[in-house]
């Protein structure tokens, strides 16, 4: 009997394909472990970033890697799932060069039954949390001065922020812990995988440092104190390193230097003695902040990267000459609003800063400074694309803008040999977009992370807003709420009536502290947020942030200049 082999294989392959795609649909909700690992993206416009764009081409992905890229229809293997990307553009996976994605945000702790807490209890809890952080690391330094804190230890792949970022088109994030001063050591992760170990591409990447002081009563409480605290730690680390080396040379008859986890964590970042000195990312936005951290880096001969960098354009030549990259925040300054009718006019410096922010990227590019875009703690990822678009309008070449969220970022993090462009052999991180990537109307249709495909449903809770697709959340929050706010041992009753429009919140707040319309209201995957002008002796902006905890229940925190406290809410039918 003659068997038509090729026909047999075709049938066999399609059966496998059918089975596997059925299987995929079944399991994709729980696990992607058994999902197909081979794809062909055909008829796509491909922005490779490493070479020329391909107007109509094919990308073949297998086992987490890009195996082939080319114009026209490449030989598509029979065992791959084919995605017809006609009308879509494929970019290398978009990298957010700084965020705390995957590290759970501290949640307001709230006893059941709505029993609140006063500020003293809140501070006590904070203190406990701080002691816990210290206990975990067994360090004598307070929380905030623990450079050993590592994002790699804190990442939880179940955290919803990973999905939010991925749905917004990101495949990769440089994850920075949420501490102050020494923020900790970052990890570059792919937004996929069951475990942190699976997600991590490289860790640690850098040590992150801000000079934002600590809470009241805890050294340092001032900016100059922050500089002093950090300076002393670097000096101590240098000294400990030398003492340990001397001891190792001649342990007998020498007193053993103490081990110190916090100081030892600084060793890889110290100068001179360390081959392959690791970089320190300094958070600095204004001209004077950048000037300060550059001085500090010079003082200790550190390998610096600037993060934030709003006014880094003014240092372009110096940054280029010293090869200091910038993780440029796309969280451009926005107008804040208040209800005070007799508010002073905004200062020129504030007006100028807002107008100048989009121009920085072009200035850095013109001078040849290496830079990467980061989300900079923005509440809404839509700003990432829109503000990258504003940078392009302000003179940044489009390819340079794409590069600053793909290959350019990969180069700064030392992983350009494995990601950042669409080339055979690289990690299959791809972002597939319908429409112009810098246009508000663009949609992300697919994201490939480590070769796993995520289809982004058009109406999924995608970005932390933007698409306005979070209809369920919007419906849950709309209505009249009775709020109980804890304020210095007593409770304050208030009502807030909320209306929603896409991801925007509007409404009216009423209480004994005054009645005012709410402003800057937003709904996101994390919850909601709005600002109310309250009169507590003086006019203050109270920022309400919380989430819906159950049917007709909400809980959250109120943050004002005086501190943070909690509130609960019940929806009136």
């Amino acid at each position: 009997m003659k068997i038509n082999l090729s026909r047999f294989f075709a049938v066999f392959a399609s059966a496998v394909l059918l089975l596997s795609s059925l299987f995929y649909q079944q399991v994709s909700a729980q696990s992607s472990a058994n999902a197909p690992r081979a794809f062909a993206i055909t008829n796509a416009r491909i922005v490779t970033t490493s070479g020329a764009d391909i107007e109509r081409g094919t990308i073949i992905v297998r086992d987490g890697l890009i195996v082939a890229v080319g114009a026209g229809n490449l030989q598509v293997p029979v065992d791959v799932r084919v995605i017809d990307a006609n009308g879509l553009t494929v970019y290398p996976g978009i990298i957010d060069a700084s965020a705390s994605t995957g590290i759970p945000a501290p949640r307001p702790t709230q006893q059941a039954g709505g029993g609140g807490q006063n500020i003293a209890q809140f501070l006590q809890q904070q203190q406990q949390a701080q002691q816990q952080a210290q206990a975990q690391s067994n360090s004598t330094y307070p929380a905030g001065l623990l450079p050993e804190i590592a994002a790699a230890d804190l990442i939880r792949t179940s955290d919803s922020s990973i999905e939010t970022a991925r749905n917004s088109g990101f495949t990769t994030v440089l994850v920075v812990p949420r501490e102050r001063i020494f923020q900790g050591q970052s990890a570059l992760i792919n937004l996929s995988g069951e475990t942190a170990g699976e997600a991590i591409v490289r860790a640690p990447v850098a040590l992150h440092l801000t000079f934002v002081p600590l809470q009241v009563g805890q050294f340092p409480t001032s900016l100059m104190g922050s500089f002093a605290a950090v300076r002393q730690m670097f000096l101590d680390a240098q000294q400990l390193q030398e003492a340990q080396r001397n001891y190792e040379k001649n342990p007998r008859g020498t007193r053993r230097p103490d081990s110190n986890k916090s100081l030892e964590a600084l060793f890889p970042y110290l100068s001179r003695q360390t081959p392959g000195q690791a970089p320190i990312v300094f958070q600095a936005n204004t001209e004077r902040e950048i000037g300060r951290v550059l001085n500090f880096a010079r003082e200790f001969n550190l390998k610096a990267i600037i993060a934030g960098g709003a006014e880094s354009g003014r240092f372009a030549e110096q940054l280029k000459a010293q090869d200091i990259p910038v993780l440029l925040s796309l969280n451009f300054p926005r107008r804040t609003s208040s209800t005070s009718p007799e508010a002073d006019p905004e200062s020129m410096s504030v007006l100028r800063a807002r107008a100048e922010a989009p121009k920085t990227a072009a200035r850095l590019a013109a001078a040849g400074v290496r830079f990467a875009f980061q989300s900079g703690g923005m509440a809404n990822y839509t700003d990432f694309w829109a503000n990258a678009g504003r940078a392009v309008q302000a003179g940044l070449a489009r390819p340079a803008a794409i590069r600053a969220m793909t290959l350019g970022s990969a180069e700064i993090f030392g992983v350009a040999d494995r990601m950042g462009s669409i080339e055979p052999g690289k990690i299959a991180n791809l972002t597939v977009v319908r429409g112009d990537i810098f246009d508000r109307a663009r949609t992300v249709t697919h994201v490939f992370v480590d070769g796993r495909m995520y289809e982004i449903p058009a109406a999924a809770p995608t970005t932390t807003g933007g698409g306005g697709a979070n209809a369920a959340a919007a419906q849950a929050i709309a209505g009249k709420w009775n709020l109980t706010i804890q304020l210095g041992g007593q409770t304050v009753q208030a009502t807030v009536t909320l209306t929603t429009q896409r991801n925007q919140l509007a409404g009216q707040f009423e209480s004994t502290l005054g009645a005012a319309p709410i402003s800057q209201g937003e709904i996101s995957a994390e919850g909601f947020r709005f600002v109310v002008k309250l009169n507590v002796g003086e006019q203050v902006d109270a920022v309400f942030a919380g989430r819906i905890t159950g049917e007709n229940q909400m809980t959250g925190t109120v943050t004002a200049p005086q501190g943070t406290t909690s509130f609960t809410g019940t929806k009136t039918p």
Partner: protein
Amino acid sequence: MKKILSLFLIVLFVSAPLSAQQRNTAANANEILIRNATVLTAARGRLEGTDILIRAGKIAQIGKNLRAGANAQTIDATGKFVTPGIVDAHSHAAVDGSVNETSYSVTSMTRVHDVINPNDINLYRALAGGVTVLNVLHGSANSIGGQNATIKIKWKRPAQDFLIPDAPPGIKFALGENPKRSHSNLQPGQTRRYPATRMGVEETIRDAFIRARDYKAEWDEFREKSKRDKNLTAPRRDIELEPLVEILEGRRLVHSHGYRSDEFLMLLNLADEFGFKVKTLQHGLEAYKIAPEIARHGAAASIFVDNWGYKIEAFDAIPYNAAILYRNGVSVSINSDSNERHRRLNLEAAKTMKYGDVPEEEALKMITLNPATQLGIGNRTGSIEVGKDADIVIWTAHPFSPYARVERTMIEGETFFDREQDVQNRAALAAERQTLERDEANRPSTSPRATQPAVPRERVKADLDDADDIDGGNHK
């Protein structure tokens, strides 16, 4: 086209810093001749109809009918008064973040020069009041506060340019209600800080110097031993104690906040015990009670003229303080400690003539040469003398007249405030504001929910000192 553009950019970038440099050297090398002024020298009396020739940022000649080079800029000062730039020996302008590191009572590790904000608008306003030098101090919440920064207000320059390179370093001390935190409101959960009494303040300072003495001994021993043994590990560097060692070695000036005479005597005795000098007693409202003792120690006083009664320890103040100290041979300066008062220090100095008949030139010295000497920069600024920095103010009238206005403030021959220029610039600024407000990023939202922008209201205080704010004295 691209080539041309990149060439253009290169030219732009290469030439920009060059031209700035050229401008500076031009400003410095070029001669400036101030003609026919009434010069109050603050050193050699009052000179009528006098010219001042400035060359390379220094005062080159003072005299009548001076001749300058062909390219010299000439400023006709007929009918005008010229004084040295005003030196404010107590300021908290230009500090980013809190003025006080309130966590500990000894914070000698903090340095104001780490956090200078060269864009603080109060600096420009100080220039407009004829001030050229500020002693920017840590606040008074701590027994031993942070290290100061002595700056010249080189407005629109980077912070580094503000620092006077050869100014001796200093440090803030504080006595009395502020370091014992009498006025601080505790946050919930916060415990009261040691010390809480005046004797506790003394103990805190003594303890710090005992530690500093031990620290110095440890290092001295290491330096001695390491001459023979090269493998010795150096002792830990302690940036809290290093500045205190510098005080013990006479290399750092102590500027101590305080009010009561008994406490000042305590500090002077403590300094004698450890063998160092206190350079200035700041505020010193009761200094008149111990003027001979202050003179004997060699300390100076940097005071308010007639502020009093704003706290318990300020009740024994008298406006004759300056005159009494002056007549006892104490160097007196009048300071502001305020972003408001530093705009009118000339009138504060004038008050010393009313209260106690301080001679005119001595009164002027109290805001120029005396504070400069107290800050260790009297050799380069503070008076109009040949060879000194051309830090010069031109006034429309005698600076002790309430009608006097500053026309021009120069630092090292360069004009940093020019009243005429300021008035001219206002139209351009208004136009820029209009353009900026039309800019997309600044345009008010059209949404009905939109409200006014939130702008923190500026409050400038002159009647309190720097530790009275709950946050530890942040004036902004």
